[in-house]
Structures are given as C-alpha cells and as structure tokens.
C-alpha cells in the first residue's frame, strides 16, 4: 500500500513538472500558432543558467533559479522578435526556424559546459519526509509546491485578468485581435520563463546535459495532444495523467514497457477524442 502511495507522489511530482513545460508550449501554439521546437531548449538553458549562477557567480540557489527564469525569458523574447514573429503564420517555416535555433543553442551549451552531463550540481536542501511508510524527498516536495503555485498563477492570469482575455482573443482570431491592438509578443518570454524555471528547479534533482530538451519536447507533445491544443486546463490534466501513468508503469512494468503503456493510452484516448481531452477544432497544419 505504501509503495502504491509513494509511487503516486512521484507521479504527482512528474505531473507538476510536465504541466509547467506543457502550459508554455500549448500557449505558444494556441495563441501564436507556432510549433516551438526550441521549447525543450528553454528547459536546458534554465538548468545551465542556474548551474552557472550558483557555481561560477556564487549566487544562492533560489536567486539563481529566479535569475535563470528571467534570463531564459529574455532569450525567448529575442527569439520571438527576431526570428519567429514574421514567420508565425507558417507552421513548417516557424518549426524549422525554432529547430535551427535549438541546434545552435545546444552547440553553444556544449561549447561552454562540455558534452558530458554536469556533475556536482545538486539541490541545496537534503532529507525527506517519512510518514506511515511514505517517502518524499524535501527537494521533490519543494519543486511540487513551487510548480503548483506557478501553475495556479498561470490559470489566474489566463482566466481572470483582462490580459488573459486578450490572449484568448488572440487564440480565437489572431487577425481580429491584432487589429484591436493586442500583441502576443509576451508569449515566448512567458513560456520560456516557465521552461527555464522548471529546468532550474528540476535539473539539480535529475540530471543536466545539453540534449535534455529533446526528451522534454516529446513529453510536451504527448501532454499537449492528450489535453487538447491551446487548452491550459487540458494540458494540466493531461500532464498529471502522463505523470501518473509514467510513475506507475515504470515501477510496476519497467522503464521502456512503461513508455509503451503511455503510447497505447495516448492512442486509445485519441481514438475516442481526436482533439484530445479538452481540445477543440484546431488550426490547419
């Protein structure tokens, strides 16, 4: 029983991380129509910036994480302004451009930090909660708490503010919303800040290497099509579903079989609901 509950906690933790990545990804697509292959790169950059600010500059971990999220947001803004804005209406062109940027960013990370995974980068708080046979490391609990707060803040922003309403108007009819003076140019920085924050928090617990982005991108794809494109609520539900399935299937079936179970579930859900759990008719591809 304890094992089942502990695995559930791992699933929740994975779910919050995937939600952070997927919300940014789904917002960029839903509002701008861009398939952002650089999104996973934002996660890796967040991790490396945090690592550099802690180990080279000597900043305290928490300040380094916030600075890394802001730094990643700036990178996102520059990418949007200089490379994406003009090509946003063409899915394939914007996808290939962000793919090119991802290749360049990965090379830069390798040139600066080397091709091997970073060693000696760990979460500053050790220890774990132990209660009635349950086990939860403090680091995981803190990451879950921070991610939950950020996810709730995103919900508030999207569904409870005028700014959120204008963003959703942009998702419904980009041309009309642009004519009303609404600009989506804060989307990339916001999404990159989420990815960078997640990278800064999670990579000290898991691992940090330059190619991390590819795995994160794949997870974002799975979560976003399960949840329904452009749906923040759908992405969040799907992220927890994926986290849970991954945790239980990895523990009880083994690594790659667990992944297979996930793919089968995705396939079955899409058979019943081709637009995902909370999706609607999508933009043309």
């Amino acid at each position, binding site marked *: 029983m304890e094992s089942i509950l502990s695995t559930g906690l791992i699933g929740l933790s994975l779910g919050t991380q995937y939600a952070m990545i997927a919300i940014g990804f789904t917002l960029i697509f839903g509002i701008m129509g861009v398939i952002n292959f650089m999104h996973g790169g934002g996660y890796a950059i967040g991790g490396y910036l945090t690592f550099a600010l802690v180990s080279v500059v000597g900043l305290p971990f928490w300040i380094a994480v916030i600075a890394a999220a802001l730094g990643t947001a700036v990178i996102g803004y520059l990418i949007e302004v200089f490379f994406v804005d003009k090509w946003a209406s063409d899915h*394939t062109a914007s996808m*290939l*451009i962000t*793919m*090119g940027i991802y290749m*360049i960013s990965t090379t830069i990370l390798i040139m600066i930090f080397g091709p091997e995974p970073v060693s000696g980068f760990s979460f500053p708080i050790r220890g774990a909660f132990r209660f009635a046979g349950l086990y939860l490391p403090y680091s995981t609990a803190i990451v879950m708490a921070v991610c939950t707060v950020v996810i709730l803040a995103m919900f508030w922003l999207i569904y409870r503010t005028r700014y959120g309403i204008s963003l959703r108007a942009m998702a419904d009819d980009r041309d009309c919303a642009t004519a009303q003076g609404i600009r989506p140019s804060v989307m990339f920085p916001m999404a990159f800040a989420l990815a960078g924050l997640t990278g800064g928090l999670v990579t000290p617990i898991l691992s940090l290497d330059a190619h991390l982005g590819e795995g994160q991108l794949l997870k974002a794809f799975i979560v976003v*099509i399960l949840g329904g494109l452009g749906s923040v609520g759908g992405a969040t539900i799907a992220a927890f579903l994926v986290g849970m399935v991954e945790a239980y299937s990895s523990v009880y079936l083994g690594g790659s079989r667990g992944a297979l179970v996930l*793919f089968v579930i995705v396939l079955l859900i899409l058979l019943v609901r081709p637009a995902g759990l909370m999706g609607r008719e999508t933009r043309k*591809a």
Partner: protein
Amino acid sequence: MKPRRERDLNVDIWGIVVIAAFLLVPLLGRSPLTLSLGHQVVIGITAAFAVYIMERMNLLAFTVPAFMAIGGYAAAMLATNGITSLPILMLVALVVPMIVALPLGLVVLRLKGVYFIFFTFILNEALQVVIFETPGLTGGANGIAGIPPASFMGQSLSTLPLLTAVTVVTGIVAGILTLLVTHRFRAEFSAIQDNQTLAQSLGVAVWKYRTIGFIASAGISGLAGFALVNMLSTAHPSSFTSMSAVQYVAYAFVGGKTTILGSVVGASLLVTMSNLFSAQGMLSSALFGLLLMSVVMAAPGGIVGEIRKRIERMRLNRLRDRT
C-alpha cells in the same frame, strides 16, 4: 505558355533525371568519401519524397523514420535468413510498411491539423520502444548486425560502388513511384491541399486519398530504410530516431515542397553541407541549424519554388514587353 500541369510534370521528371545522374557516382568516383556522400544524399532524397507525398495534401508527417525502420528491419530479417535478391528485398521493404500503414492510417488520419503532426512524431518514439522490447525479433538495443548485402542474379552487390548503385536504383524506383502517385491523384491531392472541407463537399473522398497518400508515403519510407540498412549492413534503432524526421521534413521544405525536384535539391544541399560541416566537429550542428534558418527565411517557398517564381516573373515581363 505551357499549362501548369505540364510544367509541374516536367520539373518532377527533372527530379528523377537528377537522381538517375547519381548512377554516375559509382561509375566515375572510387573515393569512399564521394561514394558515402552519394549514398547519404540519395537516402535523404528518398526519405524526403515520403514527406513530399504527404505535403501534397497539406499534411506534415513525421512518420518517415518509423516506416523506414519497418522497411529496413523487414529487409534485414529476410537478408539474414538467406534471401538477398535485390528485387525481393526492395519489394518487401516497400510492401511491409504499406501493410502496417493501412490500419494505422485509419486511426492517424482521423486526427486533424497539429494533432496529426504531433502524433506522427510520437509514433517514432513508440516504434523505438517496440524495437527495444522485442530483442528476439529485432535484436533489441543491439539491432541486427552483419546483414549480407543485396544480390542480383546470384551476384553479390557487396563492393562500395555496387552498394551505392543499389541505393541510387532504390532512389530512382522511389522517385518514379512518387511521380506516379502524385500525378495520378494530382487533382484530388490539390483539392485536399487547397481546402479539405470544400473538396469533401464537392464529392472528393478525402479519407480515401489521404489513406492512399499515407500508404504510398510509408512504402517510399520503407525503401529509404532498406537503402540505409543495406549500406550500413546493420539495422539499429539509432538510425531511425524521431529527430531525424525533422531533417527529412527540412530536406523537402528547403528544396521546395511543391515539386519532386525540390526534395532532390533540398536533400542534396543539406546532406552535402552537413558533411562539410562535420569537419568542424562540435560546430557542425550549429552550422546546420544556421543554414536551415537562413534558407527558410530567405526562400520561404523553397529553393526550387523561388527559382520557378523568378522564372515565371521573367516570362510574364517578357510577354508584357511583347504586347
């Protein structure tokens, strides 16, 4: 001026002629580097054809590596069991992915827009897991090594020039099949590409033509997989990663996604440049990324598309001057 259909056919035939010209590589060049580059370019072209077929219906498919793996592994299993005849291996590499694509297409083609794109991307990962989980059949993480080369009329095609010739012949077959499919169903594919809903309302059986395109694309991918496996004499999951799908899309897009010649030009340019960049070691990936971005931003219609646009503009100017 010739009608658009005839001009497109001419451009596509030129695409096949250019691939056929790659037969000169094993005839003239003996350098392993040249032969290896020829191999890679033609495999890239063949894989780009699979993307091109789907693009003709406005569908961006990332399934190429998955079907390459199915075709490549099917041929590898046959060859390691003693059947090395080139026509049989090519037929198996073509047909097995098509058979797999039929039921899969019934599910995948229900998805619209970006759901289709993302799901086809995920399919590659699913297939990788299947390969890892079936070591008895596919060799698992080790793959299938020591695959005997294809043979023709009892003659083993094992030397480097002959291996290259096999790859080029596979590319020519793939090119001809692509030409046949895209021109036989040109009107239907174009109607779907322009407006799927309108096409459906005018009586075009959209699901039927999308399925035909998907199956044809799977078969062409399988041929590319066979060429790759035959060249490496190994079928390994690392040869068919999800990210390689983006490269094949890039080949078709950079060259120009509206013609067969576009795939040929795009793959030839990007594979050659990628090989040149590999001399720069660590920087090669960044240089490739930079090239990809530059070409996409400078020529949004692809290289062939931009050239055709300029030629047509010149023709129109000349006509205007005459009148």
